[in-house]
């Protein structure tokens, strides 16, 4: 369990984190979203005990990170944003060091190194010096370090940054698999990643939490969410528009012709009527005897929500 209460962090006069509060329970994978410079990394640095907060409180597994830092740090594995590692060491030497720092010795240490080498696909480079590795390998070396003591809690700052699409997929699988038992907080600005592996997502903008919910809940905030799209053949645009607009549950209707077919989007009159709306539209289509090849309810898109509730960097600079 991680609790974050009213976290504030000031750098000089600039407030990087401004009253962030949330909780994460075991079995949750929390996605941390936000534009660059929103305060994601700073929040993670405070949770992991690297930085003290200006005010507010963080407890990790019941241990306050300021009053009892060692107990809290023991529970966590941390992948910092730049995925640093000691470039003069070999991958094996580095993992061995990390295991020792975590108090592992003897057979337990060997097993731990073998386990994370497998998890992070490092077998081929185990005895290479870190500074000869590509960015992807370096990143996974640091990820392996975070997993070495099989921690209850994982804090991963952009875990898929710099990986190729296959490796991204593997890391997401890994996060989802480990997330069943552990607490995982990871930051990203790849929205599909949130849908792929989070049980919950928090969007941070300018140091404050602006949205907190399951990916489905966040998507429902999208303007498109709940609207029904239908595509029919051999009918005029105006006919489609007028018939659909007569529906009691329909709000705004827009339709345009695409070659032989007409595509229409019907928004519900009130939010949350998606299911009724789709069946009402289906009834109209059946009654009129239109041929159709598409009829579905939009779930909403995370990137629409993201754009709507966070201000772009350019706007911030102007403000």
């Amino acid at each position, binding site marked *: 369990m991680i609790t974050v209460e009213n976290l504030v962090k000031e*750098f000089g006069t600039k407030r990087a984190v401004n009253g962030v509060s949330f909780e994460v329970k075991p079995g949750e994978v929390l996605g941390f979203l936000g534009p660059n410079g929103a305060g994601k990394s700073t929040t993670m*640095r405070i949770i*992991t*005990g*690297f*930085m*003290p907060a200006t005010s507010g409180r963080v407890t990790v597994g019941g241990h306050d990170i300021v009053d009892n830092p*060692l*107990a809290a*740090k*023991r529970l*966590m594995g*941390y992948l*910092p944003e*730049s995925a*640093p*590692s*000691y*470039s*003069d*060491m070999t991958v094996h*030497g580095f993992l061995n*060091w*990390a295991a*020792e*720092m*975590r*108090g592992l010795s003897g057979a337990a240490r060997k097993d731990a190194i073998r386990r994370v080498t497998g998890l992070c696909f490092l077998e081929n480079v185990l005895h290479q010096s870190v500074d000869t590795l590509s960015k992807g390998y370096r990143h996974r070396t*640091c990820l392996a*370090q975070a997993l070495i003591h099989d921690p209850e809690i994982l804090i991963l700052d952009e875990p898929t940054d710099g990986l190729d699409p296959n490796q991204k997929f593997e890391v997401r699988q890994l996060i989802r698999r480990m997330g069943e038992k552990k607490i995982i907080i990871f930051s990203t600005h790849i929205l599909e990643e949130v849908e792929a592996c989070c049980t919950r997502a928090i969007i941070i903008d300018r140091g404050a939490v602006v949205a907190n919910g399951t990916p489905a809940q966040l998507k429902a905030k999208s303007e498109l969410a709940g609207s029904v799209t239908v595509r029919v053949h051999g009918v005029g645009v105006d006919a489609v528009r007028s018939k659909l607009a007569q529906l009691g549950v329909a709000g705004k209707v827009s339709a345009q012709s695409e070659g032989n077919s007409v595509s229409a989007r019907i928004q519900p009159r009130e939010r949350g009527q998606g299911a009724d709306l789709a069946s009402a539209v289906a009834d109209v289509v059946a009654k009129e005897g239109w041929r159709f090849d598409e009829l579905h309810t939009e779930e909403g898109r995370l990137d629409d929500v993201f754009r709507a509730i966070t201000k772009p960097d350019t706007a911030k600079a102007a403000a």
Partner: protein
Amino acid sequence: MGDSLVRTEQLTAMNEGFRNVWTISKRELGGYFNSPVAYVFIVIFLLLTGFFTFSLGFYHERGQASLAEPFFSWHPWLYLFLVPSVGMRLWAEERRSGTLELLLTMPIAPWQAIVGKFLASWLFLAIALALTFPVVLTTAYLGDPDNGAIISGYVGSLLLAGAYLGVTELMSAITRNQIIAFIISVVVCFLLLLCGWEPVTQFLVNHVPEGLVSLVKGMSTWHHFGTFQKGLIDLRDVVYFGSVIGFSLFTTSVVLRGVRGA
């Protein structure tokens, strides 16, 4: 029963503390020997000590089986450049490469990292110093030196290196640039040395009150190192070097706290 339980817990915590210090030290020492830096350093150190002792130190011309003048008296000047070159990377490199974040989110107390790094570099300097043993053997072969003076000379030299190293570790925490850390360390160590060097104290005697002169002199590494060369291990000098090291390492911890907050 309860008491012994508390004692056992304290012992475990202490053991863990030492183990963490050792883990840090091992990595740092490995860092020296994994790169050519260590070997280059040791070779340069030995060449310079040899050169200073046998050539500039007029070792042969003196006709005395003593190491104080020809050998140990050069160490404050040699260390002035060599110790900062060994210690400059200690924290600057961690800050530059971002590994500081990794190190300080490990379940260790910051002082363990500070002491671990210090001990690793000090041990490295001790190894380099120990490799000057041929000078001692030569002296023993040629004459009948005062073994006590040799031992106290070595102890003093090691303490002097430790004091410079403490200053360097502190300067290394201040910046993420190793070169800057090196330059500031050299300057600070030079000032510490200079304020007890005779030409300077002679100058001061004529210009400032006597009390101030002895205070400035008392702060100098030169002054305290001198006693060891005479063959004396005086507790006051040991305390002095210990204080410089302790103060530097404590200030390093304060600086690092600031680095993490900003």
